[in-house]
């Protein structure tokens, strides 16, 4: 187990270094960083001096090493547009994105898994058929359209829920939370549903397909032949076996929730990292783009590692210490 975790950590470091290299390459090869920082009337000498001071004349690997070390400490330089350290900008917005993604993830799992199980077990009931047809909408409608439709219905026509922003937030240290105020919670509803809908239907369909697959296996048949009641067969044996592949996909989707919050954030003007990133792209604000890239990669790596460890605890077949 320990050697397994150690190996995965090592792999994670390699992945992070590769992503850092890509992010760093953006600095060097997308435009000239000096040009991005100084005005048109700066002389060639001043440019040279600045490049020297910023270490841009050092060999490639020295620069990359410096970038990676700084990034590891959370320092991604200074935003071209805001003239502020990127780390501060991200810190201010991280909590918004993470809270949104967290709520969306909870919604995804809380509805996706039970609905998947239900439609697998009661495939012929009317409710299952309705859920399955509705889920097609979730899979096929683009996120921004869902967001706009929700805004139209609940924000404009019914006027029940706010349509943009986070509402009132409470600061706990550098973390700001919308969980503690009514307007914060209300503001979370529409964006989190928008973000969760696609993932929810995906997880639901996956759970359903896996569950149907598991229900056909011999050990389920044997469990029935032993006289176990349906409840035990379905939830003790079938569901647990269903979850093994579902964990992988859920992990990946969780990363995707954070990464692809961009669209939802721009539809709802949610002050998160995604919105910051979109603006950074239009402003060619490379430090922010690089930081976002590294950060998202970091989330993916962490989630994947957690998934692998979960796998390890759920499925005894993967434990190396087994003796045949």
């Amino acid at each position: 187990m320990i050697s397994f975790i150690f190996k995965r950590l090592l792999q994670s470091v390699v992945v992070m270094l590769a992503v850092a290299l890509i992010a760093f390459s953006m600095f060097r090869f997308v435009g000239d960083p000096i040009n991005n920082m100084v005005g048109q009337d700066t002389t060639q000498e001043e440019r040279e001096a600045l490049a020297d001071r910023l270490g841009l004349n050092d060999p490639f690997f020295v620069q990359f090493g410096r970038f990676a070390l700084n990034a590891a400490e959370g320092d991604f330089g200074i935003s071209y547009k805001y003239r502020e350290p990127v780390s501060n900008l991200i810190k201010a917005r991280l909590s918004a994105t993470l809270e949104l993604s967290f709520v969306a993830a909870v919604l995804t799992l809380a509805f996706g898994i039970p609905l998947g199980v239900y439609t697998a077990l009661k495939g012929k009931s009317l409710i299952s058929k309705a859920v399955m047809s509705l889920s097609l909408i979730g899979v096929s409608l683009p996120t921004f359209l869902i967001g706009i439709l929700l805004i139209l219905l609940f924000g404009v026509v019914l006027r029940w829920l706010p349509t943009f922003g986070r509402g009132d937030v409470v600061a706990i240290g550098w973390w700001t939370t919308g969980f503690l105020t009514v307007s914060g919670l209300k503001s979370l509803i529409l964006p989190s549903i928008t973000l969760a809908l696609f993932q929810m239907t995906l997880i639901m369909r996956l759970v359903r397909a896996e569950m149907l697959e598991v229900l056909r296996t011999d050990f389920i048949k044997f469990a029935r032949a032993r006289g176990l009641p349906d409840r035990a067969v379905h939830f003790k044996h079938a569901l647990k076996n269903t979850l093994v592949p579902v964990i992988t996909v859920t992990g990946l989707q969780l990363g995707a929730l954070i990464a692809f919050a961009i669209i939802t954030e721009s539809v709802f003007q949610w002050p998160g990292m995604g919105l910051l990133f979109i603006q950074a792209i239009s402003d060619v604000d490379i430090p922010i783009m690089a930081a976002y890239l590294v950060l998202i990669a970091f989330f993916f790596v962490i989630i994947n590692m957690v998934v692998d460890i979960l796998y390890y605890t759920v499925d005894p077949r993967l434990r190396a210490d087994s003796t045949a």
Partner: protein
Amino acid sequence: MDLLNINNLRIEFPSRHGTVIAVDDVTLTVEPGEVLGVVGESGAGKSTIGNAVIGLLEPPGEMTEGHVLLKSEQIDTLSAEAKRKIRGRRIGMIFQDPLTSLDPLQTIEQQLVETIDLHLKLGEKKSQARAVDLLRQVGIPDPETRIKNYPHQFSGGMRQRVVIALALCAEPEVIIADEPTTALDVSIQAQILELMRRLCKDKQVGMIIITHDMGVIADITDRVAVMYRGKVVEEGTTAKILGNPDHPYTQSLISAVPRPDIRLKRFPMVNYIEEEGERTKNIDLSTHWLGRHRDFDEVHGPLLSLKNLVMTFVTKPALLKSNRIAFNAVDDVSFDINEGEVFGLVGESGSGKSTVARMVCSLYKPAAGEVIFAGTEISKIKSENERDYFRRQMQMIFQDPFSSLNGRMRVMDIIAEPIRFHKLASSNQEVEQIVNDLLDHVGLGAQASVRFPHEFSGGQRQRISIARALATRPRFLICDEPTSALDVSIQAQILNLLKDLQEELGLTMLFISHDLPVIRQMCDRVGVMKQGKLVEVSATEDLFENPTAAYTRELLDLMPRLDKLSHEGLEVEAG
């Protein structure tokens, strides 16, 4: 009083193409302590009966007539909940594949305790004690510690013991075992059957064993019911059915069973099943394409010679060579096969038989040693031309007829592919003519060429595989368990076909099987493999009559005894 009565059972599967009658007017009884065998080939409806008795008929199947009585109480009309309470408590079930019968994510203990507590309401502690006791009864060593293990930590035979323990949890009155040993090696099979028979006698349990294997029937049953297309065609004591069957189907079935005790020239009377084609038209090999150009390089000495062959698989990969764990799947194997000879390779699963075959046709590269075919060492072949020539001479027939044919190609193209690849015919018309003749020759008929593989049964597909293998006009055939996926009567037909072809074309064969009786019928000489090593090589009759290696004797002892089998109308091949 009978323990279990199945009266006039009829089970129908409605489908779009009309109703399929899976079981028709079947009446069976089981007494306490008795083992009833239900034997038949695939599709005969045997398993459906078992499922119907425990109330787990798969939809859309339904029981339309008849009833099932357990100790004179009718159980087929009970509610679903009441049927569930009988399952496991009064009727236990054992399935075919022990590798998939247990929940992989739960320990043996969790599964045993769950079942025991459910039926006997003993509570956690007592259930655990009973679980350990059950494991001891079914012969699992060191049950106190093994009970904490997960299914994957047990071998196939041990898992089947666990499955039996699970079926015995609540001391059921009847046990239905559906092909309980089909997935197991012969030595494990013997142990499991012995165990089941003992439990049945000790606990006065009535047992129904559903199987296609006459060896199992001969070993363990008291009475036998023979099923054919949903009907019981004959029922009687085991000795009567095996030794003096009345119904023509039973006679045909018995005559198709490969005999461990004598070598027959051919399998007689195996064509009760109409579906398989007879050879309608034989081609004259002296003038036909298939018989021409068989002028391969002449060989002095053996056609195939294996010298100290070793194959290593890495079981635990690691960056450092010293940390890797490897095992020798084939360990220092040497033997020769002479031209025109059928050489058998026999051994239990994992003994390395198939690995040898794959090295012979250079699908695997040996870790050490040499494969010399027709005087050339095959690893030294460099030019593409030479390699093609080598490949043309050697063809392979695989075990699984379902996955060894490309399902998206027509039979014509499947068989024509090697002819076209090796440019063995001058025109497309000639290729088509050859394919049609080959199909006739293997007993399928030329009209098969326009169809797709999925339209054929397992035996017919194996005929297609054989036609494909013949299409390069090879001199050497590797048959890797060619009939182990087939029913016994189909197996007899395919083995007859292979024997005929071998004689007509003077083929040399490497015949791999785990089935000793089949080996006896097919091979001139035999090599016995155990854990990658060749323990004995001798002429077939010598091996069966006077085995030298201890392991060979052990294997022969474990062979199901078929002494009771009828000897009528058999043509024994002279020495």
